[in-house]
């Protein structure tokens, strides 16, 4: 493991009786994307705000890029950027004014600042909207200008708090492209998300947090493995043999097999991939023809269910129209 970009020990923060963050230990190595995955209210934003020096921890320690977030807050602020969960740009100003404002605050001259703002707007596909007030932007455009605002000075580390929540799939893909671009240029990204597939797609390592605590940590592969090796899906030529196939598989795999919606198919969760070959051989020996089989990795949804005992919250329900 390389140099650590973020290291926290026993980080805690309470709001009255709510233990928003109840002892978080993180070790995030430099480079790559670190995903913090958790449902609404898990303590993701509170954690990020402490790491970005916006909130003082009640207890515990945190170092960001080697600097203590309390004692050396200013050094941290110089090197990191935060794109908050909610728009952190001035909606009354235009896109270019927002970026120019930040450029000036970060020491650019008026002329260089304007150039930098224009370059960023171009790179984020916002050139056309440069002179429009941000309040007139679409959701995806807002998210992009928000991220662009965090890159006026290229940070060593960027915090993205739920960067794609509420975005349509196309805008979400654009944000993913930006994240990948950032990593390619050497910026470390810590992003929080409620979406399991997002963490799976982007993050090299994932911390799953719930009720202010890290309940699992590892690569997405490791997390999946901790739940089980996955499941075996089998499709038969003759649906009438399904009951018999169920019996054979259960015996060979040592776990119950379950019929699928497809009348000719069934599946079984497996603990040991080695047994799969033997199970398939048993089927053929019993005269059961298999037309298809697939070995599926468990989804992160299953991971979450196993880890927390409750399913991860889905996207907030749309009001029935």
């Amino acid at each position, binding site marked *: 493991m390389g140099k650590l970009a973020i290291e926290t020990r026993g980080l805690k923060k309470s709001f009255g009786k709510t233990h928003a963050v109840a002892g978080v230990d993180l070790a995030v190595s430099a480079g790559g994307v670190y995903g913090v995955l958790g449902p609404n209210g898990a303590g993701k934003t509170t954690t990020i705000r402490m790491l970005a*020096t916006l909130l003082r921890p009640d207890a515990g320690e945190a170092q960001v890029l080697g600097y203590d977030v309390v004692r050396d807050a200013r050094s941290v602020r110089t090197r990191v950027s935060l794109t908050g969960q909610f728009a*952190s740009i001035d909606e009354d100003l235009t896109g270019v*004014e927002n970026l120019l404002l930040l450029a000036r*605050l970060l020491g650019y001259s008026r002329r260089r600042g304007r150039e930098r703002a224009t*370059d960023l707007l171009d790179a984020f596909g916002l050139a056309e*909207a440069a002179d429009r007030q941000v309040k007139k932007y679409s959701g995806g455009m807002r998210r992009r200008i928000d991220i662009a605002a965090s890159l006026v000075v290229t940070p060593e580390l960027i915090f993205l708090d739920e960067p794609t929540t509420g975005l349509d799939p196309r805008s979400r893909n654009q944000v993913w492209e930006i994240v990948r671009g950032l990593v390619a240029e050497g*910026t470390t990204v810590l992003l929080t998300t409620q979406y399991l597939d997002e963490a799976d797609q982007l993050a090299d390592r994932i911390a799953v947090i719930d009720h202010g605590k890290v309940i699992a940590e590892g690569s997405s592969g490791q997390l999946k493995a901790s739940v089980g090796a996955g499941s075996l899906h089998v499709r038969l030529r003759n649906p009438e043999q399904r009951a018999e196939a169920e019996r054979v598989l259960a015996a060979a795999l040592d776990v119950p097999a379950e019929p699928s919606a497809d009348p000719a198919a069934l599946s079984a969760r497996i603990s040991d991939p080695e047994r799969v070959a033997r199970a398939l051989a048993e089927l053929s020996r019993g005269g059961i023809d298999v037309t298809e089989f697939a070995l599926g990795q468990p989804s992160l949804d299953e991971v979450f269910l196993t880890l927390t005992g409750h399913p991860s919250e889905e996207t907030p329900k749309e009001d029935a129209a």
Partner: protein
Amino acid sequence: MNATSTEQASPPVTEDALRRVLLAGERPPRPGPVSTSLTFGWRALLKIKHVPEQLVDVTMFPIMFTLMFTYLFGGALAGSTQEYLQFLLPGILVQANVMITMNTGITLNTDIQKGVFDRFRSLPVWRPSPLVGALLGDLVRYSTGSAIVIMLGLVLGFRPEGGAVGVVLSVALLLAFSFCLSWLWTMLSLILRTPNSVAGVSMMVMFPLTFVSNIFVDPKTMPGWMQAIIEVNPITHLATMVRGLMHGSVPAGEIGFVLVSSVLLVAVFGPITMVLYRNKK
């Protein structure tokens, strides 16, 4: 103006362009506190440009008060509207300015609710600069309000014996006091949760302060206990100072009082505000 069609036509985020901006990113020298405060002041001006409605309180309010008081009460209070105007106008100027300062707290509270302050607070800039900048921007509002009141006064027949020097000097001192008083509202906006509660509390403070003073009426005819209250009200001193300067005298004692209270306001509420700001959740 159709954003979506142009967006669809060209891929919004191009890998090459993104790589270029990330690589080109320089690290300019960090600007000083004056520079960052002025930049935040520039932001306040941009906001006035984009949302000119926010100038309603600095334009309509003083005009309404001047006209109402002059013509409703002028005759009764001072014998003639012309005479009353000479007394009232400096007072209205004071009232307009201190009332406008309340808006500082309301604006700031709205700002904080919106999350843009999170970004400012996470920048490596002198910490008070967003607040100082907002207050600098407010100076423009005070000046606008003052100019409107004085111009309206001149049209109606206000004749300051102190001439331009007296007027400019009194407005300058008034602006300095207003800037210092704003720190009280800034502090309040960090304590209270909503812009409405900030507005409510500041009204509760400012209404009695401006009315129980010598802004509208000379307290001579009032009962002794009332005169005593009016005498300790800082707004009274402010109004007496502005009145004196505009009409050609140099009320040294009052000027001293105003300057000292300005310094005290910042010395007390400035640091409290900064502690609250630093620890804001």
